[in-house]
C-alpha cells in the first residue's frame, strides 16, 4: 500500500549541525500523527522537508507517493494544506480577503471559502480586518487557509501555541471532523495536554532523531510506565496491606477511606478485579501513564542513550 508520507533514512545537515538524523517514518492515509518534541527537536525541519522547501542531505522523502521536490510538486501543492508556526496574516486585509487570496492561488471555487469561514465560525468576523482578530480567530483563519481545496494531507506546525483552552478545544474539534473525513494529518506540538484523544499515533523526536513511534497504548506498553489506581471506600485499617503485597505492585498508600496503588500494567486487571469484588469500595479511578510522562520517559531514555 502507498503511504501518505514516507521518510526513509532521512538526514538533514545545516553546515556542521545535524538537524535531522536517520529519520524513517511512514504515515498511512487517514492517520493523525502527533509529531512531538522540544523546541529545536526537528519538528519544523521535518515539515519543511515534507513540503519540499529544503532538500534532504541524505535519504528519501515521499509525500502522497511523490517527491515534494520533483516534477509533480505543483500537483502535490494543490493536495496539501499547511499551517506554519506563528503565522500572522495580512493585518490590513479582512479575513475574507485573506482567504480569497490564498483560495485564488490554490484555484479554489469562491463558494468553498464561504463554507470554510462558516465551518470555522468566522462568518461574522469575515469582513473585519485581521488586525482586530483574537489569537484564536487568527488560528482558525490559518486553519481555514490550510483546508482550502480539501487537502488530502494536512501539516500543522504548533497550531495550539498561544491558544487559550477553549480555542485549543475548538481546534481539536475541527481536527476530529477532518479525521472522520479521512484526512491525513501531521500535527507538531510541544503542548501535550489534551492532545491524546485527537491523535492516532505519536512520534517523539529528540535532537532530530526518532525516539519513539507508535500508538499511545503501544508506547505505554513498551515504556512499562506504572498505572495509578485510586479507590475510595470504607475498610478496616490494615485490611489491604497483605493483599497488596504482591509482584507487580510497586507502591501504595492507604488510610481509612482512600487507597492509592502504583502498579505496572501487567497486574492492572488483577488489581481491578480485587477492588471491584470488595463491597466496601464505592469508587475506582484508573490513570494510565499520561502522554507527558511518556514524553518525559522517552526523552530521558534518549538522554541516557547519548550519555
Amino acid at each position, binding site marked *: 500500500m502507498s503511504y501518505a508520507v514516507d521518510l526513509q533514512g532521512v538526514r538533514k545537515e545545516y553546515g556542521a549541525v545535524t538537524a535531522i538524523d536517520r529519520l524513517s517514518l511512514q504515515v498511512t492515509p487517514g492517520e493523525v500523527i502527533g509529531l512531538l518534541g522540544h523546541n529545536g527537536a526537528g519538528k519544523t525541519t521535518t515539515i519543511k522537508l515534507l*513540503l519540499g522547501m529544503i532538500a534532504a542531505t541524505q535519504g528519501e522523502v515521499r509525500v502522497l507517493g511523490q517527491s515534494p521536490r520533483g516534477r509533480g510538486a505543483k500537483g502535490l501543492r494543490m493536495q496539501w494544506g499547511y499551517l506554519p*508556526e506563528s503565522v500572522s*496574516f495580512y493585518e*490590513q486585509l479582512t479575513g475574507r480577503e485573506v482567504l480569497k487570496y490564498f483560495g485564488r*492561488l490554490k484555484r479554489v471555487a469562491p463558494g468553498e471559502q464561504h463554507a470554510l469561514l462558516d465551518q470555522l465560525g468566522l462568518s461574522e468576523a469575515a469582513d473585519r480586518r485581521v488586525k482586530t482578530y483574537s489569537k484564536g480567530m487568527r488560528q482558525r483563519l490559518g486553519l481555514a*487557509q490550510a483546508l482550502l481545496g480539501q487537502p488530502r494531507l494536512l501539516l500543522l506546525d504548533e497550531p495550539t501555541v498561544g491558544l487559550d483552552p477553549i480555542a485549543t478545544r475548538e481546534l481539536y474539534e475541527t481536527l476530529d471532523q477532518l479525521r472522520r473525513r479521512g484526512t491525513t494529518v501531521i500535527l507538531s506540538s510541544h503542548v501535550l495536554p489534551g492532545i491524546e484523544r485527537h491523535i492516532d499515533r505519536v512520534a517523539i523526536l529528540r535532537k532530530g532523531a526518532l525516539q519513539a513511534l507508535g500508538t499511545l497504548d503501544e508506547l505505554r506498553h513498551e515504556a512499562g510506565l506504572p498505572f495509578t489506581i485510586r479507590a475510595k471506600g470504607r475498610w478496616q485499617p490494615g485490611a489491604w496491606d497483605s493483599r497488596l503485597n504482591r509482584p507487580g505492585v510497586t507502591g501504595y498508600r492507604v488510610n481509612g477511606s482512600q487507597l492509592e496503588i502504583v502498579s505496572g500494567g501487567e497486574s492492572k486487571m488483577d488489581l481491578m478485579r480485587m477492588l471491584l469484588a470488595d463491597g466496601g469500595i464505592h469508587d475506582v479511578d484508573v490513570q494510565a501513564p499520561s502522554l507527558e510522562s511518556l514524553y518525559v520517559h522517552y526523552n530521558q531514555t534518549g538522554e541516557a542513550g547519548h550519555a
Partner: protein
Amino acid sequence: MHEILAVGAKEFRDGMRNRWLLAITVIFALFALGLAYFGAAASGQVGFTSLDTTIVSLASLAIFVIPLIALLLAYDSVVGEAEAGTLLLLLSYPLTRFQLLTGKFVGHAAVLAIATVLGFGVAGLVIGGETGQLLAPELWRALGFFIASAVLLGWVFVAFAYLVSVVASEKPRAAGLALVTWLFFVLVFDLGLLGLLVGAQGAISNDVFPYLLLLNPTDVFRLANLSGFEAAQAYSGLASVGAAQLFRPWLLLLVLVGWTGVTFGIAALLFQRRKP
C-alpha cells in the same frame, strides 16, 4: 499568469488599503502644483508661468522623491512576509518564487503608475486651466513624457527595493539598505563621478563621460527630462556636460526599462537562493 495576477491584485489592494496610492497621488499633485505656482519666484513673480520651468524643476525634485517613495513602498515585500511567516506559507502553495515576485512587481508597479499619472495629471489639468493651455498639445506632450519617465524611474527603484528585501534578513536591515541605495544613487554616485572627473584631470574623455551617467538610473531620468528644455541649462548640473544632446529621449526611457529588467532579474535570482 493566473498566479502572478492573483498576487498582483492582492498587492494592489494592499496599496489601496494602506493609503499608499492616495498618499503618493496627493504628494505628486501638491509638488507639481507648488512648483508650478512658485517656480517663477526667482524672477520676482508668483503664479503659473512657463511650462518648461515647471517641468525642469519637477524633474529635479522627482529625482529625490520618486526613488524614495518606490523604495519605501516595496522594501519589505519579501523580508516582511518572511518575518510574518506568510512567505513560508506562500512557498507551500502552487506558485513559484518567480511568480510571487513578479506578481508583487505587477501590483506595486500599478500603484506607482496610477498614482503618478493621477497626481501629475491632475496638476497638469490645473496648470493648463490656469495658463489657458488646457488644450495645448505641447503641454501634454511634455507632461506625458515626464510622467512616463517618472513611472519608469519608480519601477527601477521598486526593483531595487526587491533586491534589498531579498538580501536582508530582517526588516530594519532592509530599511537601512534601502536608505543606503537611495543615498548612493541620488547623491554619492554623482559626487563620486565628479571627483573622478576632476581627479583624472582630463584622462577621462568627454566621449566616455555621458555613458558613465547611464550607470545611474536617476541620471538617466535627469538626462531624459532635461534634454530639449532651454530652461534646463540652469538646473541640469552634471547632466549638462554635453550628454543631453547625445541620447534621444525615447532611448533613455528604454535604458530605464533595461534598468528595471536587470535589477528585477538579479532580485529574482537571489530570491531563488534565499533560504525559506
